[in-house]
Structure formats: structure tokens, C-alpha cells
């Protein structure tokens, strides 16, 4: 067994151990893409956590131009606390006609001090951890600005270098139902393309990335801006009317936040299942190891 001392000093240990044969490794992510990706991770993390804290100030959603405590017919989502017949407090979440007991997670959960706390989202999920609308807003808007500037950098760079057109936008031939179905089956079996087939994104990746980049995140920005009375005036009523009113825009902002969380869960799960080392390394160094070809 080789000891560490046997490694030539000019070569870092990790490179010696994992350096794949030529042809398997290619430069997948340019430095701008990688920097934008990690800034985005930071932004979305803070935006979601501070957004949940903001939401806790009025944990209800409405459809239409307006919505407040008395507008029962417009309220389609709410988180609250109530109590059972015997007086035991419970947390409740209502989506449309369906009310679910969400004690322990939503409405009523253990705070960071271990005591039961009646509020929308639990303290462990919010930034700051304690309910503090003013602080949460301050951080939310800082990261919203960073998120928008970072996102514009990514979009402009991606369009100019054709990264978005060539690598992210779904190819027409990939959209064949047979190909999509094949990709779904392979994913369900946790068999991910490797080797030559892994030198470009397959259709499910492209749909997920393009959907996030071109639909979900732009909707997030537009619905967010729709909640700003100053921006609404500047936009001459285009926002929030595009979404059917400010209360609708706030609802959609919340829904696209849920979709973003769903994307993050699937994205991270795929990274972990398909090989977290080479996936993470490529988003840090840019170099992606396609690995050995899989036998069919």
C-alpha cells in the first residue's frame, strides 16, 4: 500500500488519486457561471429564510387586488394556531377547502428556546430566527438586490456566450416523448448518463434548469416588485396587474418560492445520487469528470 510519502511532492494528493484518464474530463462551467451559482445559493438561502419571517407577520394569502383579515372569500391559504376541545393548542394550515393539523411544523412548533411557539413558520426555518419583520425585510431587500444583479449577470453572460442557448435550453429532438420517457425511467432507476452521454445536459436537466432560470426566478422578481407600492406607481399599473392584483402577486410570490424549494430539494438529491464529489468539484473548479461509460 502506497504511503503519502510516495506521492511526488509536486502533485497534490487529491489529483494523484482521482485524476481520470484523458477524454473523460472536460471544462463544463466557466468561472462566471460558477461564481453566479454560488452567489445565487447564498441569495436564495437568505431570501427564503427572511421571506418566511416576513410571511409570519401576516400568515395568510389572498387572490385579487386586496386582501386583509375580513376578506374571508379571498383568502385561500393560512397558517394559524387554535385549540382542541380539551384546550390542547394545535397548529393548523389551510389550503383552499383543506385544513390540516400541522402541529410541530406550521402554526405551532417548538421555538429555539424549546418552548411551544404559535407562529406561521417555525423559528428554525426563518431569518432572523426570532420573529422580527423589520430585520427580515432589511436582509430580504439586500439579498433581493444582489439576487437581481447576479441573475442579470448570469443571463447576459449566458446569452452572449450562448451557454443558455446551447447547454440549458431544451433541444428540439430531446423533446421527443420517447426521449423524455426514457430519461424519466432511467432517473427512476437512479441510472444517470455517464461517459460521452454525460457531456451535455439531458432533457430533464434542461427542463428543470430552463424552467427555473426563465420562468420561476423571473416570476419571483416580478411578483416581488409587484408588492412594492413605489415600483407599482413607476410601472404605471403594469405591475401588479399582470398578476391580477397585489394580493395575487403576493400569493404567486409564495407559490414560486415553494417551487424553488422543490427545485432545490430535487437538485441537491440528484447531485448526491449521481456522485456528489465530481458534481461539486465541477461547480467549484469547472472541470467535470464524465466517468466511465455505462454499459446499456
Amino acid at each position: 500500500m502506497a504511503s503519502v510519502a510516495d506521492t511526488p511532492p509536486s502533485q497534490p494528493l487529491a489529483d494523484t488519486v482521482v485524476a481520470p484518464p484523458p477524454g473523460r474530463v472536460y471544462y463544463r462551467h466557466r468561472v462566471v457561471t460558477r461564481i453566479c451559482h454560488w452567489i445565487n445559493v447564498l441569495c436564495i438561502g437568505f431570501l427564503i429564510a427572511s421571506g418566511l419571517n416576513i410571511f409570519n407577520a401576516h400568515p395568510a394569502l389572498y387572490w385579487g387586488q386586496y386582501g386583509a383579515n375580513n376578506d374571508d372569500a379571498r383568502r385561500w391559504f393560512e397558517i394559524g394556531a387554535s385549540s382542541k376541545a380539551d384546550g390542547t393548542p394545535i397548529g393548523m394550515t389551510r389550503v383552499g377547502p383543506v385544513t390540516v393539523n400541522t402541529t410541530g411544523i406550521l402554526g405551532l412548533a417548538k421555538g429555539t428556546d424549546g418552548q411551544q411557539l404559535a407562529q406561521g413558520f417555525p423559528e428554525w426555518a426563518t431569518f432572523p430566527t426570532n420573529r422580527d419583520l423589520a430585520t427580515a425585510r432589511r436582509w430580504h431587500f439586500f439579498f433581493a438586490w444582489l439576487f437581481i444583479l447576479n441573475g442579470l449577470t448570469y443571463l447576459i453572460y449566458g446569452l452572449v456566450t450562448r451557454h443558455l442557448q446551447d447547454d440549458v435550453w431544451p433541444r428540439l429532438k430531446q423533446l421527443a416523448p420517447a426521449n423524455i420517457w426514457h430519461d424519466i425511467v432511467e432517473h427512476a432507476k437512479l441510472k444517470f448518463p455517464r461517459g460521452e452521454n454525460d457531456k451535455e445536459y439531458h432533457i430533464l436537466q434542461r427542463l428543470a434548469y430552463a424552467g427555473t432560470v426563465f420562468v420561476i426566478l423571473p416570476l419571483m422578481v416580478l411578483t416581488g416588485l409587484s408588492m412594492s407600492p413605489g415600483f407599482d406607481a413607476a410601472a404605471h399599473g403594469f405591475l401588479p396587474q399582470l398578476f391580477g392584483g397585489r394580493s395575487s402577486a403576493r400569493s404567486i410570490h409564495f407559490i414560486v418560492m415553494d417551487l424553488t424549494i422543490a427545485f432545490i430539494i430535487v437538485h441537491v438529491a440528484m447531485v448526491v445520487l449521481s456522485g456528489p464529489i465530481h458534481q461539486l468539484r465541477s461547480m467549484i473548479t469547472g472541470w467535470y469528470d464524465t466517468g466511465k461509460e455505462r454499459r446499456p
Partner: protein
Amino acid sequence: MTVLTRRSLIGVGAGGLLLSSCDKLSNSVGANDFVAKAQSATYGWQRLVGRQALAQEFTAADISPVFKPNGSTNPKDDDYRRHVDEGFANWKLKIDGLVRKPISLSLADLRALPARTQITRHDCVEGWSAIGQWTGPQLGPLLKAAGLLPTAKYIVFHCADNYGGEISKGGAQSTGRYYESIDLIDAFHPQTIIAHTMRGQPLDVAHGAPCRMRIERQLGYKQAKYVMRIEAVDSFAKMELGKGGYWEDRGYEWYAGI
């Protein structure tokens, strides 16, 4: 079993570490001051793209059936109670500070002024919205009549209600009296009115009788109720906790256009 326990311990430990790091970050004065800089970006950008833009106006059919009263809804302050009991007969609205000719208006004077009626959306910082109809004189012409001095930079609204609440950050003392302030762009904005009438009825106590501000491009906490005095100033640094408003003194943004 041992591995599971160790792993769950590491999990809890990492989670705890993350939470306590977040607490350190959200409590850090330096970090908060840094992220607060985004407010200037928002203010600058909105003044650049929509300096004179009007807030959207709605139709009578869009009005909220119940306009939620918020903040003080029934001030207990002695002077204010006396005005309520007298039907605001002896109430006066003062416009003073950095002006050449201070103005004092009775409620009858205020009602006799040319008025603007507008149906607008009120957005509370908490997240709810309500649409209401407001009538009252524009603030701009009144400031012109009072002869605003060139040194005036902000307009402060002093209110009758003591909203109380948390006191003092950094040693300064706040009386808890409600006040608000805006820049001259909003002060002279055509939709900035001193509303004495709501949906055709005299403004009720819950909504700020006898008059409240409507500053339609900003959030609800800017819409000062129970306004007693309108003061032109060059700075609000010496007022209460120095941030330009009751909620601003408690951490909220001075520019509430977002």
C-alpha cells in the same frame, strides 16, 4: 445504533451551529448597517424611474368592504379625547417649521379647501392590502401657501396618538408618540393629500379622525393618522430616536416604497 446516535448528534450540532451563526449575524450591528444600504439603492432607483409617477387608482367597485384599521384605533391621550368629545370644534392643524408664514387650520377650514378624491390601495408592511376612497386637500399647495423655505428638506407629521411600544435602541429615548416624515418629492406629489373624508363620510376615529395623511406610493405606516401638526424641517436627526418616524425608530425603513 452508536453510528446513528453519533450522526444525529452531528446533525443536531450542525443545525444548532447554523442557527446560532444566523443569530450572531442578525444581531450584528455592522452586518445590519451593511445590508441596510440596500435601502438607498431602492430609494434612488424608485426616484429615478418613477419620480412623479402616480399610484394606480381604482373604481368604486374595487373598494374593500371592510378597510382594516391598524395601529392606534382609539387613542387614549387626554388632549385627543377632549377633541373627540368637542367634535373637533377647537381642533387646529398647524403647518409650521421652516416656512415663512405658519398656517393654522380649523377642521372647517380644512374641509373648505379644494379637495382631491382618490381610490387607492393601502399596503401594510405586514403583507395585507385594502382599497379605500379618500378625500382631502393636497399637501403641496398648502406648503406653497405657507412659503416653504429653501432649507426645508423633509415634512414631518406629528400625531395625537401615543402608540407606546418598545423604547430606546442605543440609549436614546422615544416617547412613543406617533410621527412620520417624507421627502419633498412625495410632499408635493399630486396624490399626497390630508384626508378628512373616507368613502364620503367624515373620517372616523379608528381611521385617524379628524385627518390623516395619504402618501400613496409608500406603505401603511407612512399614512400618519390623527395628524395635529405638519412641520417642515431640514433634518429629523434630533427628533425622537432620529430615524424619521415611529416605526423607523423601531428598525423599519424610512423610505417605505417597498
